[in-house]
């Protein structure tokens, strides 16, 4: 990194507020931390004495575990709170919950919440650094960063790549973070999915909306599929998963349209046989498990950087 660079963010709320320089710095730190997870003793004392709270209002397996592993490898003390959003309607508001947690003097609060903007609101009420682990349909910045890291690791660059993102763009916070992140790093992002799942305004975020799967995937360096989220489908968006798989599912034939060395990615958890066929998910071009490995390194980097700014 250029001399004199100083990571300017106290909180990580979204990729939207990170510059290309910030992202490059995070990835550099993450790449240097990756080696820690390969050691026999996977622990460094960097965050010893720091208290990190995982405040998850939505179910999560991998993101929460990944943050916890990252924090523990940095020697921080971690605590997990699984709260139901319905507890808000039972009396305690998010702000009250946050203030109570804040009174125990944590250094970092990692929050996942079903409402977009919830982490932004917390920054006004707590002293701890806030890391957004996914808010509503807004952003999932650590996922976006680990995807950038994974592509960078395999391609050696991000600039000039064609990234195809296929599926439910509307409800995917991962898609939003990736559109912002990849375009900021010089990739061109092409999206495709059923028109019912393509929100308006994507060109304003930097993405090209394609009119066919072939247009999106042809000559792509990265083919990313998104989970069709069954729990958000209370709107007649799709006639059936069967038809989704037939019209929009990423098969071996679809991947063959991309560059021969294209990477296949998925943020998980996968609906196998719906948005992504099993032979592709487990095939030679898949880097899905690399994404998970890199997730720990990226989250270690984020914890390290926000603590450096406290």
């Amino acid at each position, binding site marked *: 990194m250029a001399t004199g660079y100083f990571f300017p963010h106290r909180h990580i709320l979204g990729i*939207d507020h990170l510059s290309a320089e910030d992202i490059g710095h995070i990835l550099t730190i993450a790449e240097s931390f990756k080696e820690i997870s390969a050691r026999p003793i996977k622990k460094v004392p960097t965050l010893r004495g720091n208290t990190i709270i995982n405040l998850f209002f939505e179910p999560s397996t991998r993101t929460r575990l990944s943050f916890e592993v990252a924090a523990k490898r940095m020697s921080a003390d971690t605590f997990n709170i699984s709260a139901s959003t319905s507890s*808000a309607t039972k009396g305690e*508001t*998010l*702000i009250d919950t946050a203030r109570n947690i804040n009174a125990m003097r944590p250094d970092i609060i990692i929050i996942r*919440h079903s*409402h*977009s*903007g*919830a982490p*932004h*609101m917390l920054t006004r009420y707590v002293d701890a650094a806030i890391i957004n682990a996914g*808010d*509503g*349909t*807004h*952003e999932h910045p650590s996922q976006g960063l680990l995807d950038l890291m994974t592509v960078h690791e395999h391609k050696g660059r991000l600039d000039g790549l064609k990234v195809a993102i296929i599926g439910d763009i509307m409800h995917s*916070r991962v898609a*939003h973070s990736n559109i912002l992140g990849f375009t900021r790093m010089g990739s061109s992002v092409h999206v495709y999915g059923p028109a019912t799942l393509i*929100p*308006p*305004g*994507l060109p*304003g*975020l930097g993405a090209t909306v394609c009119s066919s799967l072939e247009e999106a995937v042809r000559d792509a360096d990265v083919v990313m599929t998104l989970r069709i989220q069954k729990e958000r489908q209370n*709107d007649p968006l799709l006639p059936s998963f069967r038809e989704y798989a037939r019209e929009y599912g990423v098969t071996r034939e679809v991947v063959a349209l991309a560059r021969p060395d294209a990477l296949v990615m998925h943020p998980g958890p996968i609906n196998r046989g719906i948005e992504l066929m099993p032979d592709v998910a487990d095939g030679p071009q898949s880097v899905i498990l690399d994404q998970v490995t890199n997730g720990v390194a990226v989250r270690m980097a984020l914890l390290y950087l926000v603590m450096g700014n406290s």
Partner: protein
Amino acid sequence: MAENWLIKNGRIIDPKNEIDRQGDLLVVEGRIAAEQTPVPEDTREIDASGCWVVPGLIDMHVHLREPGEEYKEDIVTGTRAAAAGGFTAVACMPNTRPVNDCRAVTAMILERAGQGSARVYPVGAISSGLQGKKLAEFGELREAGAVGVSDDGLPVRDSQLMRRALEYAGDFGLTVISHSEDPSLSTGVMNEGEVATRLGLKGIPAAAEAIMVYRDIALAEQTGQRVHIAHVSTAMSVDLIRTAKARGVRVSAETTPHYFTLTDEAVEGYNTNAKMNPPLRSGKDRQAVREALADGTLDAIATDHAPHSILEKEVEFDLAANGIIGLETSLPLALALVRDGLIDAPRLVELMSTGPAAILGLPGGSLAAGQVADITVIDPGQTFTYTEEQVVSRSRNSPFLGWRLQGRAVLTMVGGRVTHGGGRILS
């Protein structure tokens, strides 16, 4: 006890009587006196130099929250905010607790209004309990003092019910005010568009409003009845109203200062004081609304003054209540339209006084001799910063806090009684 007043050296603007002149206006025993009337001995003077003297402003769309939600606002605090904003009269929507769908609630509101600082005209419910199922008793509401009916806040889903409401209200001379939105489309929390996508918030398409506006126009056309469209926010709705008026449909419409001032970008940062229903729209919609105020497509500026406490607003954006306060900022924001050259001063008076009076059939909206002296004195040049400390309303949910505004009411008079701004009284 009515007083006599001589309002001196103002620009007297009364578009209904085609008056726009420099001079004095005399009030005798609470009524506007004819020109040349000798000034009684015990007359007090008001300095209106540099100011406009206009018929009292009327806000035809407010929520006073009483009965039921007095922690947000009540009739006394709400009308005090109205007076501070230059309003001499307000029409209050029926979504109180209990709903104003019967004589008892209307009468209670009017009784409380006796202690207020502005005239209060209750609007009754279209449907009992705002349930959208059966008509409220319009005859009784009229007799108790209601001036219109509306299910504001909740669109009337059932087109047959809406048709019957228009027909039946006509029998009683009640104006039907429609909150026009298709509820199956308006399930989001802000305008559908790029900003909503970037913030990850569920959008409400402009079509949600236009579809219902067209339904209401079609019903008015079919039945020959009159309909008033509340808080128009989109270019599509404006076009529908414009063409309907051109073919003679009896439709009138209002918009609010926030739709002609702000766009959906005000939501950035998840600002719950920029959340209302209908939502703030795109720049294109805002422009269409501004043009419609100028060309006569829209007949009134109303505030949709909707007080909420921090309990409803300091929460996740998705969960925050809809609505903002507006009584104290409406006039300065409308005056910006005059400064921008979009409308002239007489048109502003039409939109904020004469128009609403005509739509609801209210006294006022005129400075003709013999009229009750409801008068607003406006200093169009005075600038101020709208801060939390100076909010008169009980609630502070305004997106305009911290704004530098120009132009405000320096004196408000209701029936010869000064309700706001004693500073201009000379003797």
